[in-house]
């Protein structure tokens, strides 16, 4: 019989952040020593409007339990309708996930400002709990 594990590993979360807005917010969480799961990995991009649904699908198929888009929101310096555009690609990605029998609940998006450190940490802990309740991706 295998020994009981000391602790269930946390679900792996991939975060797509944006260089100018949400990534500094995530940096600030670290600067303030706010803790979140070490299973969270961040890939920064120029803007959340540029995330490809195929990247999200690939991440979930390859082993991430969830993908979180830390969107620029209303602070985006490039696009005044950044939130609409990011929401549109989220809808496209959710449709793609359904086609591949992956729960769209594994994808989350929220606007995250450059000082939204607390927000980020609370999103990560909530998302972690939600992902734990889902059946593993097969």
């Amino acid at each position, binding site marked *: 019989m295998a020994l009981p594990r000391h602790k269930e590993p946390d679900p*792996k979360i*991939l975060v797509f952040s944006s*260089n*100018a807005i949400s*990534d*500094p917010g*995530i*940096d*600030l*969480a*670290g*600067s303030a*020593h*706010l*803790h*979140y*799961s*070490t*299973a969270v*990995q*961040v*890939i*920064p*991009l*120029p*803007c959340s*409007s*540029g*995330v*490809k*649904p*195929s*990247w999200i699908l*690939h*991440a979930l198929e*390859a*082993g*991430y339990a969830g993908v979180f888009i830390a969107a620029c929101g*209303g602070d*985006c*310096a*490039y*696009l*005044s309708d950044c939130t609409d*555009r990011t929401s549109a*690609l989220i809808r*496209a990605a959710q449709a793609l996930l359904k086609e591949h029998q992956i729960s769209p609940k594994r994808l989350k998006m929220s606007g995250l400002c450059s000082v939204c450190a607390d927000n980020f940490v609370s999103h990560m802990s909530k998302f972690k709990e939600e992902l734990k309740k889902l059946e593993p991706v097969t």
Partner: protein
Amino acid sequence: MTQKRRIGVYICHCGGNISDYVNVEKVADAVKGVPGVEVAKTHVFACSDASQQEMINEIKEQHLDGLVVASCSPKLHMFTFRGMAKRADLNPYQYIQVNLREQCSWAHTSDKIGATEKGIHLLRAGIAKCALTHPLNAIRVETKPRVLVIGAGVAGMRAAIMLADMGLAVYLVERENQPGGWARVTGEQGPEKQNGDQVVSALAERIRQHDNIMLYTGAEVVSKDGSIGDFTVALRLKGSETVSLNVGAIIVATGFAPYQPRAGEYGWGLPGVVSLADFRQLLSETKGRLEYQGKPVRSVAFIYCVGSRQTESETCPEPNAYCSRYCCSATTHTAGLLRQLDAKIHQYHLYRDVRTYGALEKLYEKARTDGALFLRWTPEKPPRVETKDGRLSVLVTDTLTGNEELEIGADLVVLATGMEPRQNEGLNSILKIPESTDGFYKEIHIKLRPVETVIDGVFVAGAAQGPKALAESVASALAAVAKTGGLLKKGFVDLEPLIAKVNPEKCTWCDKCLQACPYGAIKRIHTGEKEIALVIESLCKGEGACVPVCPHDAIEIEGYRDDQIMAMIDASLKEVATP
């Protein structure tokens, strides 16, 4: 990959900031075997001169063709290490920074094993991205030594004079028939008691005499082409004549619009209810006894925060949430002017908070000590203005006297109206500068890049960017001058090459990218037998909105290419032996 890469990986202790929580030696060991990694070492402070020199020597001696530094956030040292790469004759765009401090050690101080594992994942993702880099060159654009300044208010006029003094040619464009903007009609300005129209006349005279400035009044911008360093702008002059200008940069100083109260708002529309600007006009025209429409004025009530700091309600569906900054000072300054004219006139100042910041506090202090009465109201119970027996009556619940409702008889009610963004739809569609939620032109970063917009080469100055007092407007105009001068006196500008790139084989021209691009950076071209999209390098901002909308995966952002992101995802998931 055609050729094996030779990547140098350097992991920073940050003097303990990283190494106290992440076992950096273990991370270095774990990535040593990653394909393409030639060197994997740690440094106590990677950013120190000595460490940089060591890395430079190693890059040269080992002929490294890729560089990964895992240290603090790229916001701090990306440019430091790009510079280091350049000094080592390595292309700066083959350098990748991994955020091992803000997004790893500092966020996981209570889990050293977890932080070390995560560090290995982050490093592997960075190495995977680095392995797929190729040399890129900054896009160099020559700049024209000429500037277009839109708006000849005080901000625009000051900017024009300073730029002209630097030796740049300036085209100053004003929509109205004379320069000066609002300052021309506001009368005496606090606190140095200069008269607005005198300030404007003095500036206009300097402009008239300056060889380097061409002033166009009654003129409007009707089109803009080109990009940073080389814009072509068309103006329509009086009599529908057009002029074409070629400039290297543009300063937008189009100012504000005064808030127009709604009918019935604080009695607006009742005889005797006037705006602060109207009241100041009346004061400046009055010699002797103050009268309004033939009747003597014995009592004046000022209501503050009209059109500012609003909350949403049925009557105010689109509130101005911001403070207009100038009104408290202008109103307390007006109190002084009124007292100077006639000390016997009763003054009631109905305010929410007095924001006479800095030295302007003296205006407020003087108004109070000179006998003006200040009453404080809250937005839950705003003052009401009515007519009673042929006279104005103001009802205010004063929080300073125990929330008592007081009735004030007034001959005039003066509304301290705030600033609003100007309705410039034509200009907005030409310039495409993003607006803030308040509707003013938005800078890139309020503290770090306060006069630059996301449109390279287009700067904002003055109240076009948000409510400002005159002194603040001038300060921002001179900041825009400094940025513009810095750009144009150098003669060229280097732009980031991390922009969109079309794969001509995959592209079939469907115009989706064209529709997604707000910067006009996509052009349809013919190549051989087919039509494809072409990216205009100097206009592309590289934000990537075109990337997910392409149905053929034919467009991507350099530095964030499909293969790079996919490789990062895969590399970050590779299991690590528990350290």
